[in-house]
């Protein structure tokens, strides 16, 4: 259901652009107004989300410890899985953000006869890491459209990515990787009944939008060619706030529209996990709550409870009867 909706939405995007640019010729709208607006929404939205989260206190140190705590010198502790100070927390976060540490731990449970067994299952980790790194590389690569002269590292990256001369222009390896990874991420949602059950339209939509973005990009590079010089004149115009919509094929506008849609969608969807992961209290805190005094949340009030003296009054008889000491201090204070 969700997948169908997402597919229809994405196809609608294509049709909208096709009608808007191909037929109505609204190049200014689709080339300039929408991208700028989407970028603003993205920028402001993301910053807003971060501020929104940051305004909420973290009242307790609810670290998820996945390794030995710091205790005795002779006990080997796990700095990464049970960080004791901020430096170790940073290391843990780096592993989490750059290596997807937690997904790497993934297992797959299986019932075999009377036994429950756990297999190693790193496919999700592999798919996720392939997708994210490929996406990031593609993003960096696109910097060649936003700079002149193009910085050397970007050019080197481009050359490494197109190291194997397949087709002309050369096929980027990241293009292949991201398509494969997206396909895996999509198919697993369909193939595994559990995942199909939990997947919402808003899980398929970003996948499909990125599919659209990637496919339109690949089509533009290899099949429905556009004049890349004009495209760059346009992108350079964008960053100089002096854009002129290029007279190129609709495919380019489809590409730009998918990008805009994705940017605008970002802050309001699950895609905020990109920033949210940094705000996760189970990962970004140190496991030192017995050693270091932390500030309680501003709203936190010390609890009211039955004090010893009140309690002693209530159980005085039994205490005396069973020979337990009576605290005379309770009466002195009064």
């Amino acid at each position, binding site marked *: 259901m969700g997948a169908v909706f997402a597919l229809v939405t994405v196809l609608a995007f294509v049709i909208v652009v096709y009608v808007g640019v191909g037929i109505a010729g609204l190049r200014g709208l689709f080339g300039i107004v929408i991208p700028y607006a989407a970028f603003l929404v993205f920028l402001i939205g993301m910053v807003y989300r971060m501020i929104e989260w940051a305004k909420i206190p973290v009242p307790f140190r609810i670290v998820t410890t996945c390794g030995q705590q710091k205790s005795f010198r002779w006990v080997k502790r796990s700095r990464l899985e049970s960080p004791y100070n901020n430096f170790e927390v940073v290391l843990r976060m780096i592993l989490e953000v750059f290596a997807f540490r937690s997904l*790497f*731990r993934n297992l797959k449970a*299986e019932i*075999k006869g009377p*036994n429950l*067994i*756990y*297999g*190693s299952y*790193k496919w999700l980790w592999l798919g996720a890491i392939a997708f994210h790194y490929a996406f990031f590389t593609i993003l960096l690569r696109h910097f060649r459209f936003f700079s002149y002269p193009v910085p050397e590292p970007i050019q080197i990256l481009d050359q490494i990515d197109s*190291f*194997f*001369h*397949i087709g002309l222009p050369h096929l980027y390896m990241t293009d292949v990787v991201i398509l494969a990874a997206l396909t895996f991420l999509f198919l697993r949602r369909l193939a595994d009944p559990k995942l199909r059950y939990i997947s919402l339209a808003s899980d398929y939509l970003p996948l499909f939008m990125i599919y659209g973005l990637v496919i339109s990009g690949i089509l533009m590079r290899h099949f429905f060619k556009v004049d890349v010089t004009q495209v760059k004149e346009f992108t350079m115009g964008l960053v100089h706030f002096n854009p002129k919509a290029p007279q190129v094929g609709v495919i380019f506008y489809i590409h730009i529209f998918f990008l805009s849609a994705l940017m605008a969608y970002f802050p309001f969807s699950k895609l905020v996990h990109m920033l949210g992961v940094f705000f996760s209290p189970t990962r970004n805190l140190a496991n030192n709550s017995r050693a270091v005094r932390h500030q309680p949340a501003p709203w936190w009030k010390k609890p009211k409870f039955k004090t010893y003296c009140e309690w002693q009054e209530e159980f005085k008889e039994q205490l005396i009867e069973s020979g337990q000491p009576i605290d005379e201090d309770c009466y002195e204070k009064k």
Partner: protein
Amino acid sequence: MLEKALVGSKKYWALVFFLAAVFLVGFFFFLKQLKYGLGITGMSRDVSWGFYVAQFTYLVGVAASAVMVVLPYYLHNYKDYGKLTIFGEFLAIGAVTMCLLFIVVDIGQTHRLFNVLLHPTPHSMLFYDMIVLNGYLLLNLICGWTALHAVYKGTKYPDWVKPFIYLSIPWAFSIHTVTAFLYAGLPGRHFWLTAVMAPRFLASAFCSGPALLLILIYIVKAFTRFDPGEKAIRALAKTITYALLANLFLFGCELFTAFYSGIPSHQISLKYLFAGLYGHMKLVPWMWASYALMLTAAILLVIPQTRNNLGLLPFLCLLVVIGTWIDKGMGLIVGGFVPNPLEHITEYMPTFPEVMISIGIYAAGFLIITVLYKMAISVMESRGLI
């Protein structure tokens, strides 16, 4: 399972970093080669294949040898090889990876590597070699990984993997056969133009690969609790012995054919390798060393007392490994090119960058093997199997 390779002792990490560093040094020289061209190697117009292709050829043999433990275990249910098969398969993964890397560095236009796939050419042996090598890599990945995964889960390996295991057995023979056909099918290279080329390849593979496996197992045994058991080691030693004898026998057949028939073109490369031609004799000491080592090993392996001496065995294996490595890694390829088809003599010796790149690839291969072995041992440990 991979996470098991990410935790280990200081010694393990020292080895990993050492191999990675060596690989990076090799990679640095490869970048130089990419920039300058293959001219930084010792290869020439006349000896147009050298150290890289030779190493490739040798390692295909090492890879193919996995079948020497897989076959008895899976086909004949030889239980003593139970713990050894995974190590054999993982050695094959490392060896095939090295093979592929040696091809990558040997190619003049690395960028166009995928042309082999983009323009498939069924009449080229190289096309088949590409298929069988990658196929063998995949088969060993599937079989080795699934077998280990079953250990990890505490179950038996799943049924679907059985066809792959059975397929991997003939496939192992195929990789070395096809690689032999690369050479054996060329007109004008009389040294290679022989029907026993493929059998010779297989014989040398089935002694050198298991010998290397045994050496690795001895190393693993020294540093971990892993022990394949004396029976397995003895059985493997027998395999090495017979294969080594076959290898020497087939070489003898070559000598007979060349010298009894008296056909000069069949003799000339052999003469160059073992006696030198017109004063060109760079490879002569190497070749004699090679055959001396193999013969010594053969004699000592045939005698049961020395073969069953488990302290001596790894050294005999070392003799086999070095002997076959020189024979195939230097003599066979270079011998085919000297003299050249026009009967000029250009000698060949690898250059420093060429050797460094090769060492880098060996480091990469052994890094893969180290990581895979570490994983296998840790998984077995976690299940209390060792």
